[in-house]
């Protein structure tokens, strides 16, 4: 059976997908995950999830429009030039910019 592994590096952070393991059952899957994905890299917690239990939605499926698959300039903070903004707005915009940059980088190669 295949299990996907999500690692949380430090307390309070998000769990992020780091890979998978093959194991006959959950008990062994957890052990493998620990050895493979948390032995060297710092980890505070792991989520181990049977692959079959995970629902998937792909961007190229019909009737699904996901972020980054559409050109929708009007809904980005970067679309509006309004001068200096309060710090929390600037931060929101920086987060959006970095997502935009990633998306642009992907379509370049």
């Amino acid at each position, binding site marked *: 059976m295949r299990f996907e592994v999500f690692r949380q590096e430090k307390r*309070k952070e*998000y769990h992020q997908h780091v890979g998978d393991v093959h194991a006959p059952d959950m008990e062994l899957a957890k052990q493998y995950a620990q050895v493979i994905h948390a032995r060297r890299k710092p980890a505070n917690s792991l989520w181990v999830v049977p692959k079959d239990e995970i629902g998937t939605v792909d961007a190229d*499926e019909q*009737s*699904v*429009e*996901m*972020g980054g698959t*559409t050109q*929708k300039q*009007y*809904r*980005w*903070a970067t*679309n*509006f030039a*309004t*001068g200096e*903004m*309060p*710090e*929390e*707005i*600037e*931060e*929101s*915009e920086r*987060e*959006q910019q970095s997502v935009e940059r990633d998306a642009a980088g992907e379509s370049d190669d």
Partner: protein
Amino acid sequence: MNIEQVKERAGPREFGPSDEMPEPYRKAATRMIQFHANSEIMGALIERPFIRQAPSLERKLAVSAQVQDEIGHGQLLYRAAEQLGVKTREEMLDELADGRGKFLNCFHYPLDHWYELPMIMFFVDGAAMRRQASLKRTSWEPYAHAIDKICFEEGFHIKHGEDILREIATGSRRDKELLQDAFEKWWPRILQFFGPTDDDSTHGGFAQEVGLKTMSNDDLRNAFLNAYLPKAEKYGLEIPEYPRIEYDESRDHYEIENSDLDWAEFETVSKNEYPPGREQIDSRGRRQEAVDWVREAIMDDSTTAVTGTTGAAAD
């Protein structure tokens, strides 16, 4: 955990569904997040007519994207509240529809005109964003996670709101006059957004002690005024003489003359008894009822009836 231990450990993102939280914490957190979620929904409800009334296609697209975002914020927040185990999402939606659910004062007032829209989209959303940014450090982790996503999206709302404000403010003389009228109508309500200044609002003290809230209402209002008064001036808006606001340089603090604001109306609004707000709530109730059959269809037959038809709605 007992309350003393909670107060001791309280810190950013400290508690989550795997912690056994005492009832007073769970109730206070539910009250706060439910209020926030309700406000997202009611805010979307008063902005929605402007999808139709937008003066250009660009504006129409942006307003509709924003309304979608707000509904999404509501959904995220009900989920974060639900995990406290006090109320289910259904209960919270029912409470909103039947007038028991509370929400922000500003969303009890009708929005009659395009010129009023930036009052909500820029100033009210700006005030809300000030508060939300401080909640990235709330102690209920699922709340903080919802806030992460909300803050990511919210920058667009406020900049779009300011862009509408700029467009009107640089228009004809008549535009400017109508904008000033709208500002004068909304300014006192915006000042009331954070509650009365001398009020350690009944729940504020406890919510801060257990880390749910990280800033007092007074500090939030002050930070808001610091950032947004210069913006109002930038667009040629005249700050009304009343309510009186005085800046105390030594404390870097704005003092608002509380008695210049209509707190009796604020009370009525907070109790969901202000007639125009009541109409908004009833309207929400009718919509909730109108789509009952959809919820039922999903519950009855979650595998066939509805799948495949909802995909494009929430991107």
